[in-house]
């Protein structure tokens, strides 16, 4: 069992947790993730480690309530116990001094991009961060990102804060202004990552994305998280989760992530129904 030390909402439906997991805290590197299982009969699901404190023995994860398990996680509070937390898993981000590195986070993807942006900064890069959200209230980690950036931009789809538009527009603007960009990291919804890949492709800018296929064991056994990269089968849990954006078959990832849409809805509804029942009692 793994104790939640603190739990605070960063935005509506997006919650940050510090969890006691000393071994993982000591070992984790930017880009790695943990598999969680909240309770018996719970599913195993991956979340990227946003930060860690080896001295305190804690890791930080940030979750957006999207399905049954992430919603259930977001109802948990400090002091609650998580049945299983396993990690750190996946190959760490490849970090070097590229020169100028742009880190792009879309929505809760900002939380996943943050540790890698911090590592890029520590490696001596000139770090530009672009963090996009639908609207001002959903902007997260603004201060944290600023602290690891040489330039930090916020974009909102509705223009309620920062740059009015998508992260790709901001990126294009930077490229058009003649800035030399050596490396781009993009993490967020699949359409966003695909769009960033298309922006950087003509310029040959090395671009990495962090993929989120469905995982079951997450330790290199079941093969559920296979993705198509450069027309080859790769496994996100051990070969990834970060891959060359220009090689990734995003359509295949999007198609495969829809496999259990019907069941996920059913599970979510069954759970919501039970919550209502227990609330009535």
């Amino acid at each position: 069992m793994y104790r939640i030390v603190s739990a605070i909402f960063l935005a509506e439906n997006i919650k940050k947790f510090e969890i006691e997991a000393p071994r993982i805290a000591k070992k984790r590197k930017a880009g790695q993730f943990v598999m969680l299982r909240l309770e018996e009969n719970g599913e195993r699901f991956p979340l990227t480690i946003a930060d860690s404190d080896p001295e305190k023995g804690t890791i930080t994860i940030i979750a957006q309530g999207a399905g049954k398990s992430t919603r259930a996680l977001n109802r948990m509070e400090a002091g609650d116990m998580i049945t299983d937390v396993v990690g750190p898993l996946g190959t760490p981000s490849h970090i070097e001094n590229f020169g100028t590195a742009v880190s792009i986070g879309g929505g809760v993807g900002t939380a996943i991009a943050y540790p890698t942006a911090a590592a890029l900064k520590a490696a001596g890069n000139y770090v530009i961060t672009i963090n996009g959200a639908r609207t001002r209230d959903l902007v997260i980690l603004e201060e944290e990102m600023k602290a690891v950036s040489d330039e930090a931009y916020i974009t909102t789809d509705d223009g309620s804060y920062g740059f009015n538009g998508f992260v790709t527009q901001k990126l294009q603007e930077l490229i058009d202004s003649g800035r030399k960009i050596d490396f781009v990291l993009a993490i967020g919804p699949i359409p966003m990552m695909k769009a960033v890949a298309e922006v950087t492709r003509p310029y040959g800018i090395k671009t990495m994305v962090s993929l989120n296929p469905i995982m079951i064991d997450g330790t290199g056994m079941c093969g559920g998280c296979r993705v198509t990269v450069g027309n080859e089968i790769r496994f996100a849990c051990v070969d990834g989760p970060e891959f060359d954006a220009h090689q990734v078959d995003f359509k295949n990832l999007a198609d495969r992530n829809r496999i259990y849409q019907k069941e996920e809805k059913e599970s979510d509804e069954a759970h919501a129904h039970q919550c209502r029942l227990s609330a009535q009692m």
Partner: protein
Amino acid sequence: MDPRTITTKERLAIPRQVMPAQDPTLRINNFQEVHLGLTPELAQMEALRCIQCKDPVCIQGCPVNIKIDQFIRLIAEGDFLGAARKVKEDNVLPAICGRVCPQEDQCEKVCVIGKKREPVAIGNLERFVGDYERLTGQRVDPAIAPSTGRKVAVVGSGPAGLSCANDLAQFGHKVVVFEALHELGGVLMYGIPEFRLPKEIVRDELDGLRRMGIEFRTDVVVGRTITIDELMEEEEFDAVFIGVGAGLPWFMGIPGENLVGVLAANEFLTRVNLMKAYDFPRSDTPVFDCKGKSVAVFGGGNTAMDAVRTAKRLGAEHAYIVYRRSEAEMPAREEEIHHAQKEGVEFQLLTVPLEFIGDEQARLTGVRCQMMELGEPDESGRRKPVPVQGSEFVIPIDMAVISIGNGSNPLIKQTTPDIEVSKKETIVVDINTMETSKENVYAGGDIVTGGATVILAMGAGRKAAAAINEKLMGTTKGFKEW
């Protein structure tokens, strides 16, 4: 019949006793075990068939050399717990091995009775003593030597790890088993389905190991959470045994394999067995909804049989085995093939898939296949399948399960570069001691051999335990000063 006075002629006249089983029409609707086990009467009768050879060749046929003649004699005499004790001198998991060992290729294959008649049902008898012990609650726990003060880490809680841990504990060493998943048992839990090996039995055997003082830690991915070097240097383990099993599944490399509805047997079985997807939505993890659908499993091994029979139980209207050779070449146990046939699995033999076909939403709708005929034997000694020109056809299917084998898990290699691995990325060991190229680190099971059987993995675990004990205690008898 009195076991003391029975003549050989009388023994030979007894037919092989049939183990009661669930009717196929019933069992395809549930996940309960197919076989119901021998009753004490049936077991005693079967045991009387053994002629008690002076030189029992069956023992050589067993990878862990169970004293087969002796335990069978004890069953014949009605001393079932004595029989359990005898089996457990060489095999700690009789209830499991009695169920999943390929006895027809091992002990029963060489049984002298089997030359003219059906061999003694050694596997069923082994299962009987394991079950008798558990069901009567009369535990036969092995003796443990006094503590040696030595500490050994076992990585992986599957068959190799558990048998290694058991022997090490009996030698008096402190044993800690590390498991990556949330549940102990490895392939016994995530791979082999409930209807072939009830999980309750695995849990019970694990309880026995706990009573011996073996410590288990789940959620530890050795290589990631802690490395082998850290286990030895920081946690002060004197030796490490690696039994992490096989790794990521192979795919066939044909067009359309990315379609929604094509998955590996490992994933399908993990969802159903480990994550209990058959109980969705009470259990959170879903599995492809097989009800009324057509499912094809590609491959001819035990895992393929497990997958196809699971699909049938999940309600598949058509459940196919698509295999490129004929039934005779199938690596699966005969018993599993027969069970599948009786349960209505359709065998599409001498058939290779050429391409998966999908709809505009990238969902699988069918598989284009080609018929084969058998040519000359290849390097495996099996007759090589050769395509028949103009024989292409399409099977409409909604789900495809690929079951053609596994590669090796790359984590140990990535994180412990001084352990030598083969081209296939399996760990290289000294076959006499199971020691790797890294001193005091041993390995056994599928991570060394590639995909094999439970009992071979257990044999490797035992061999490693003996070698570790010898190494830690020095070659002289008695305990090293501590």
